[in-house]
């Protein structure tokens, strides 16, 4: 069986029912999708299959034979990050980072389809992904900024839009 991973055709030996996630991680050493739940519930394993975001833990490999699969490993080219990757850094949208790969692929699909910076639209596209660290605030900020086509200074991070800092006297 053949599938194309980030532009390279790969031969797969796993049985037809094997989830794509297992093929990627255990057979092809493509490690960006994570086995967060293997129930379809968390989104850490999301990859793009023919441009569409899919939970790789739910997809039997036989059903995607011949498909074009994209993962985080295929986002940056020649050391140049994509805007959504830069947005993630500048907006501090990753803390522990375990959910990041899945979010990045879902956000990539959203933006490639012309997604806007609208809060509700972002939620509709990415809302099945779970992050336990960030409270999602900075994930929204990152996706929205990338949707607006902003450019990002990677030497610093963005100030929270609703935060003020001040000294205090006792």
């Amino acid at each position: 069986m053949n599938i194309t991973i980030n532009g390279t055709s790969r031969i797969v030996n796993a049985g037809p029912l094997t989830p794509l996630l297992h093929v990627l991680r255990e057979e092809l050493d493509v490690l960006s999708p994570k086995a967060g739940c293997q129930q379809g519930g968390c989104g850490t394993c999301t990859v793009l299959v023919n441009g569409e975001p899919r939970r790789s833990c739910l997809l039997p490999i036989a059903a995607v034979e011949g498909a074009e699969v994209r993962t985080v490993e295929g986002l940056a080219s020649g050391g140049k990050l994509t805007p959504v990757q830069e947005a993630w850094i500048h907006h501090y949208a990753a803390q522990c980072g375990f959910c990041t790969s899945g979010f990045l692929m879902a956000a990539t699909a959203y933006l490639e389809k012309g997604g806007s910076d609208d809060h509700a639209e972002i939620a509709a596209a990415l809302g099945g992904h779970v992050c336990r660290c960030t409270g999602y605030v900075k994930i929204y900020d990152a996706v929205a900024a990338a949707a607006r086509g902003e450019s990002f200074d990677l030497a610093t991070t963005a100030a929270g839009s609703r935060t003020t800092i001040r000294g205090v006297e006792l």
Partner: protein
Amino acid sequence: MTKHQGRGIAAIEYPTGMNQNGDPSQAWIKLKMDGRVDVFAGTVDIGQGSKTIHSQIVADTLGVPMDWVTMDTSNTDSSAFCMGTFASRGTFIGGNAVRLAAEKVRGRILEIGGELLEIDPGDLEIIDGEVVAKGSPDKKIGVGDIAGAATFVKGELISGQGTALKEYATLDPETGAVTIPPHSAISYAACAAEVEVDVETGDVRVLKLTQVYDVGCAINPTMVEGQIEGGAIQGLGLGLLENCYPYYPSAEHRGGQFGSYLAPSMEDLPELECIILENPSADGPFGAKAIGEMANNAQPPAIAAAIYDAVGIWVTELPITPEKVLRALEAKAAGQPESTRDGKVVRYDEALSMSSFQAAESAVRFAV
């Protein structure tokens, strides 16, 4: 109208470091021969950012650019002891360990710099990677040159170690009294929650959380925000959603998947507003104190109070599920009073067990 809005407030405090102390963190630092800084510590960055924050502390303690600092926390062979990443101890205790190690390295840099410049080390400072005479900025030598001289001329590895440890606070088992503070610092916070309650379904939405946190010093304000925002949503989960035992105390019907264990998701994230106050701690690194754990403590009581404000019911078992809201609304509609009064005792909820609680060693029993 089936939807009612309300606002509630809560104020909290939270200690930094392990209760009763006695929890060391250690670090050691060495300079490469060009002055670049290698920091070895055992503190695990669980996502909250301690490794970045420790690097910031080292850079400013030494007076070198941030990108000179490399931190290795990868294993127990190269790193020094750290009790662990818990008890909100990373920034304060782990941070003090790297600060103390950096201070030793700084002292040695200044001593060797003083020898090379023939100036008393007390009259020198380190600015942006250079040892400079105070008041005579043209008299200077690079930290890299000092490290090179130490390595190749003096035959010395410039290094330093630091241990942050507060003495264990022994307590009196009868009274709980201690004679020294049983923590490293205390942080303070408050939260206002605005909610909307659907009285037909009992569903509660948090519309906005306004929060104030005194963190002593925001060493990395973005990371402080990250803790506050992430904590806010975990607090919302605690207050309204999450339960390992939906029929507690029964262990039946546990949710074993994301569709049946209700963790907060992106949908309907409330509006958040945050004020960070800097009331420096006496001995934290740059005045910092804890933020991590306390960030999910203030929302549940603020939400409970907001629900009371909206619809006049107290739900005091968390999470405040739609079912509990409906049951409380039914009780209220049936005329059940919020509290009963007996003499000067005002009783909410059921009668307390504690008054009938017999503390005898032999037969401890109490009636509910």
